[in-house]
């Protein structure tokens, strides 16, 4: 019985949260890694692209809710997501046209491109807050309008697939287990997106041309691949991944623009751990980072109490306080940089 209780506690507090967080990081890292593989720079604006896409999706969610439409038990945001993706992709293409294209033309070094992406990051950071604050007024009405720095909850529909009380009634176990709808939606969406992306990269003509371009730019150009098209597709996919990742993260937790900026570190860590430029690596890296982060900042007292009833620890058996969760991604990043700078899977090919 104790063993089962320990397993339930572990599932409830570590496995479920880490899986959904890992899926969100994996999607974020996929976006970073694709931009790196094709455009060859680390996109510092990716966190704010996620925030921007989520903000647009939230606005659309509100519009749909006002119109009285819903998906029943599923969150309305899923209905708004395609519109969010289209608008964010449009914005990404516009940014490329106005900003990045010039630097490709003059063949700027990657580090200059990174600096340019910092400028884009500033602009998107401000735009996100302005857009959500100003447009919330006509959509939500004067009383419920939000400000740009508010923390916004926009998950509706069913909250739990399995609630803690139901689980206890069914099993009679002492430990509760709650399965939140957003966790399941996150994982299912991620699986669909990742499978679709890999199918696209490996099976379609456009995907193959992207891989060729990433592998050897000159050879790809020589064989008649249109670089402008490859770049445009990359931005569209990156924006879509960012919007999906951001929306899932927001559904699961809440939307706050600054938190998205701070996701940049675990996302980059995930991409580098897996091997930057490598999509499989990005997915694996996302889960490695998420499980380490949750596992190391979780207080193991409860689980330990079931496994080793004789041992009564005085503290919480928490390796690090949650305030240091960034230290976990950073430490993993450092270990990888020291021992295997190319990442677990060899980087920079797709």
């Amino acid at each position, binding site marked *: 019985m104790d063993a089962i209780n320990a397993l339930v506690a572990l599932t409830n507090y570590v496995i479920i949260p880490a899986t959904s967080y890992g899926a969100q990081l994996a999607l974020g890292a996929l976006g970073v890694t694709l931009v790196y593989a094709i455009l060859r720079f680390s996109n510092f604006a990716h966190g704010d692209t996620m925030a921007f896409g989520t903000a647009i999706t939230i606005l659309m969610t509100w519009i749909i809710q006002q119109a009285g439409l819903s998906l029943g038990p599923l969150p309305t945001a899923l209905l708004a997501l395609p519109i969010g993706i289209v608008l964010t992709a449009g914005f990404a293409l516009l940014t490329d046209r106005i900003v990045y294209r010039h630097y490709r033309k003059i063949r700027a070094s990657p580090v200059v491109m990174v*600096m340019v992406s910092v400028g884009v990051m500033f602009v998107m950071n401000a735009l996100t807050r302005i857009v959500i604050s*100003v447009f919330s007024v006509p959509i939500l009405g004067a009383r419920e309008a939000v400000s740009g720095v508010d923390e916004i909850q926009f998950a509706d529909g069913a909250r739990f697939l399995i609630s803690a009380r139901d689980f206890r009634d069914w099993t009679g176990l002492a430990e509760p287990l709650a399965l939140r709808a957003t966790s399941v939606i996150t994982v299912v969406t991620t699986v669909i997106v990742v499978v679709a992306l890999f199918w696209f990269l490996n099976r379609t003509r456009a995907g193959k041309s992207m891989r060729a371009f990433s592998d050897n730019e000159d050879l790809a150009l020589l064989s008649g691949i249109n670089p402008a098209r490859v770049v445009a597709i990359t931005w569209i996919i990156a924006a879509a991944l960012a919007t999906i990742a951001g929306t899932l993260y927001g559904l699961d937790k809440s939307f706050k623009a600054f938190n998205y900026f701070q996701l940049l570190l675990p996302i980059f860590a995930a991409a580098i751990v897996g091997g*930057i430029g490598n999509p499989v690596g990005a997915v694996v890296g996302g889960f490695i980072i998420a499980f380490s982060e949750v596992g190391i900042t979780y207080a193991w007292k409860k689980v330990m109490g079931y496994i080793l009833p004789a041992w009564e620890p005085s503290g919480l058996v928490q390796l690090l306080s949650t305030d240091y969760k960034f230290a976990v991604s950073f430490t993993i990043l450092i270990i990888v*940089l020291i021992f295997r700078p190319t990442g677990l899977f060899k980087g920079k090919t797709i």
Partner: protein
Amino acid sequence: MSAHQPQPATGGALRAPLLFAALIVLFIFEGFSSGWNSALGLLNMGLISAIMALGLNLQWGYAGLFNAGTMGFIALGGLAPVLVSMPATPGAMQAGGWRIMGALALAAVALFIAIWLYQRLRKGIRGAALLAWLVAAFFLFRWVFDPGVAAVEAINPSAQGYLGGLGLPILLSWPVGALFAAAAAWAIGKIALGLRSDYLAIATLGIAEIIVAVLKNENWLDRGVMNVNGLPRPFFIPREIDLQADAAFIDVSTKLGIDPVTASTVLVKLLYLGLFVVVIAALLWATERALHSPWGRMMRAIRENEIAASAMGKNVTRRHLQIFILGSAICGLAGAMLITLDGQMTPSSYNPLRYTFVIMVMVIAGGSGNNWGAVLGGVLIWYLWIKAESWGPGLMQLATAGLDNGVLRAHILESAAQMRYLAMGVILLLVLRFAPRGLLPER
């Protein structure tokens, strides 16, 4: 590197003096329009920002290194005034301080043993042995460390609850702050330099977040988010309250026809200004000498073509490490100066946009690779950053004058506060695109 394409410098020899003169006129105008106290306050912070920009300019301008963690080095430098100049908390060392020191020493020893193990062991068992050793060492560390922390934090938690400092003059903390930042830069540079250029950016982004997290959460060190207040001032700068109580000072200020309160605040700011100008002058002298020495030419040669430079026998990674440490040390110095000027240490005020990315805008706008440009950019962008906060809403007031005073207008006005971020982004993008060499191009 393409950001440094050789182009003929425009404007000639008069460009720099003219721009600096314009900056001085700007501040004189500010003094007349919104008072000398606020203008001097703005200028003092601008000069500190200029020093941060000088530090980053060494890294980005001289060597093309992308440091995304300036905030961390500034924050670490800011720890120095607390540790150097605050009085020691009585009894804290006996209660748990020695335990904490012992635990930290233990951690250092454990790391050395780990390195030793890594070098000695065979490949097959190395990973597992290292992991086992580090986990064991971590638990040992926490076992020694935690009771010490609890004991220190229990001492008068509303006012102290930390170890305190050494009670030495605060000016001593400036070089100490630089040393702290240099040590962190050495550790991070040793790992991330010599790899792909983006890795340094991401590693520094991480170390900055962690340094700030430590400062926010380790209460025994700096009281965390409870802040350390009432830091002493440099010995020759009096407190405003003492000045206002001083009969001779009141006498002089009334004779000059200035209100004693205003006079005291302005005098204090002028004294700080003098101190900062001395520091900037010294740094400018040193960095200019360095830039025009064989060392500076070598750095630029490495920046322009790493492969060629290494073919000439230059150790690129070593030089990068050296300049990365120097630049970070200057940022640490600026961080210590900032805390000295504020008189308090508030770890929650460190924001990456403000302390990392705005500093980048300063360097790029001023002119990467030009020290005078970094100073110009530092002061000018700081001025814009502060002013944009009030200009944004002001501009929006005008733009939305047609709307009635409803919620929509309130929201537009509220979000205008975000204009400063938009402004920084637009400035950075415009400069990179149309004037990649900045206001004062590198000669």
